[in-house]
């Protein structure tokens, strides 16, 4: 405020001529016009980023689909672009991705929902203030660290009681990925539960309900849209996750539902090709754009659905 006053005094101070005051006012207006244009250009950059992503993925994928038919890509059950004879069926990569994300989803939903119910319905305020930030640390740990953790700790632990043939397996990667997205599920679900009004709980308690009954029959149903959305958004995060699955789940495209086997996800395949000796512009190099386009569409749809669920089904009290 002080600087505003000072500026005014300098520009159109007492005794200043009408001419100079008009000049100052024109200057202020011109400055605003310039600033608005600059900020508008900054805003356009985020639009350009989206256009850039879609254009890049579509252009290179188009080149790929000139050679390999889209039908073969979507329905083929063998993925081997790097070996002879080449095969371009993406289903093994999709299966691997969904298997890893599915395991992560089960872990994250169980732990995340349990944690959210504890934090919102049981925990005293003091305990919640300590536990919440600790859990959120989990979301801030770099994924490469989780990958190392999966490979060096969780896999040997699983191997001690499960028949895991090779060190790479999707179970370990999925569990660790579940740990990573758990705070996302618990934070978003807890937000939805806290938003359920107090009188609804009190009414149930007045009817003699236990805390468990209030949580499962009143709070969770009322907060369900938020919980479902949290779960969808976390799954989308797991589908796009790269490092954990690249490090711990292996690099063998594998159409399987067995969590003890090594698989390859779409993201891990993209890393494999971009780190390899593949010449840019070749057909093999173009596969990463086709796989990337598929990944982009999958996560985009899940994100849109997740946000739509919140908007459409959230109860207003």
């Amino acid at each position, binding site marked *: 405020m002080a600087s505003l006053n000072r500026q*005014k005094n300098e520009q159109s101070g007492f005794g200043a001529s009408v001419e100079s005051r008009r000049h100052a006012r024109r200057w202020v207006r011109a400055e605003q016009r310039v600033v608005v244009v600059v900020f508008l250009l900054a805003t356009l950059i985020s639009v350009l980023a989206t256009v850039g992503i879609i254009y890049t993925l579509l252009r290179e994928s188009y080149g790929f689909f000139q050679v390999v038919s889209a039908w073969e890509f979507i329905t083929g059950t063998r993925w081997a672009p790097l070996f002879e004879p080449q095969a371009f069926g993406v289903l093994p990569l999709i299966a691997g991705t969904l298997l890893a994300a599915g395991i992560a989803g089960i872990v994250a939903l169980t732990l995340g929902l349990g944690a959210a119910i504890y934090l919102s319905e049981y925990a005293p305020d003091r305990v919640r203030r300590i536990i919440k930030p600790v859990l959120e640390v989990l979301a*801030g740990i770099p994924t490469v660290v989780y990958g190392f953790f999966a490979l060096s700790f969780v896999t040997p632990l699983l191997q001690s009681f499960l028949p895991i043939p090779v060190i790479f397996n999707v179970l370990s990667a999925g569990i660790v990925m579940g740990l990573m997205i758990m705070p996302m599920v618990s934070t978003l679900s807890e937000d939805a539960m806290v938003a359920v009004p107090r009188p609804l709980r009190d009414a149930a*308690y007045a009817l003699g309900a236990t805390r468990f009954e209030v949580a499962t029959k009143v709070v969770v149903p009322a907060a369900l849209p938020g919980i479902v959305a949290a779960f969808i958004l976390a799954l989308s995060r797991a589908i796009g996750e790269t490092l954990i699955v690249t490090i711990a789940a292996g690099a063998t495209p594998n159409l399987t539902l067995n969590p003890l086997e090594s698989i390859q996800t779409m993201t891990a395949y993209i890393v494999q090709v971009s780190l390899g000796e593949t010449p840019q512009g070749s057909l093999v190099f173009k596969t990463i754009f086709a796989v990337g386009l598929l990944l982009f569409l999958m996560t985009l749809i899940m994100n849109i659905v997740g946000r739509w669920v919140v908007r459409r089904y959230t109860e207003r009290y």
Partner: protein
Amino acid sequence: MEHERPPIGSARRTSSIAASITRPRHSSSTTTPNSTSNRSTWRRWRDRFFFVLFFASVAIGILGLAALVIDVMTDGLGALDFSFINSYPSRHAGESGIRAALFGTIWITVGTAAFAIPIGVGTAIFLEEFAPDHWAVRLVQLNISNLAGVPSIIYGILGLALFVQAFALDRSVLAGSLTMTLLVLPIVIIVSQEAIKAVPGEFRDAAFALGANRWQVVKTVVFPQAIPGIMSGIILALSRAVGEAAPMLMISSLVFLTFIPSSPGDRFTVLPVQIFNWVSLPQPGFQAVASAGIIILLAVLLSLNSIAIWIRNRYQTRY
């Protein structure tokens, strides 16, 4: 709402109705059990059982975090010394260090900050203060929240095709910084918008009443008030950039670098990429080196986050 409240007659007089209800009056001390008390005993046991289960999910999360930290520490502390920080990568695990990756990370972080802060904050100010309520503006807003959900590897593909190839920047610090800028931009924008929204409308009204135009109001009233929130948001976005490996893996590609970048046109490697390289090496000694690198990475992130929290607590005013 304490869970363990003694079920004496006083329970009926407690301020919290809920607490007394969870302890039914037909308690186990009743001498003549009937069907009602059996049922309420069962309900009470179920309540307790699930309390333990819900608490266990929190405990498992925290134990997982503890296991991760202990795992990294036991593997890595032995390899962590000054020569590790000051050496270049080597074929021999014992001589490997993170000097190149550490400086690469600093280059990328500074470069990302230089692009992402002005663009992100500018966008946030435009959307919150200047943009009219128009369908195109709502579309831009929707687009930004969608960008926040795009997998990081997709930004790697974009950076590779756009900055490395089309702009012919090669696998340089500049290409890496620009890629990372696009990745953290949605975070910077969204957090800055929240900070600007939190400035009360009365402040703006007061400035308008003094004859200020919109830009003067933003420059002298709104922006200074929003700076702490924007700052802590920027630091959180940058710590995301420091830890992000997937796009840098595609842009940097090279992980055996024995020099420090001296200009934005030089090649680079960053901490997560270097760690990924060590983790994927089969020779036994490199696991310890990878863990030592992780300790450094986590220490950098911890200090960044502490600064963000400190700024938030020190400067944020609640209205």
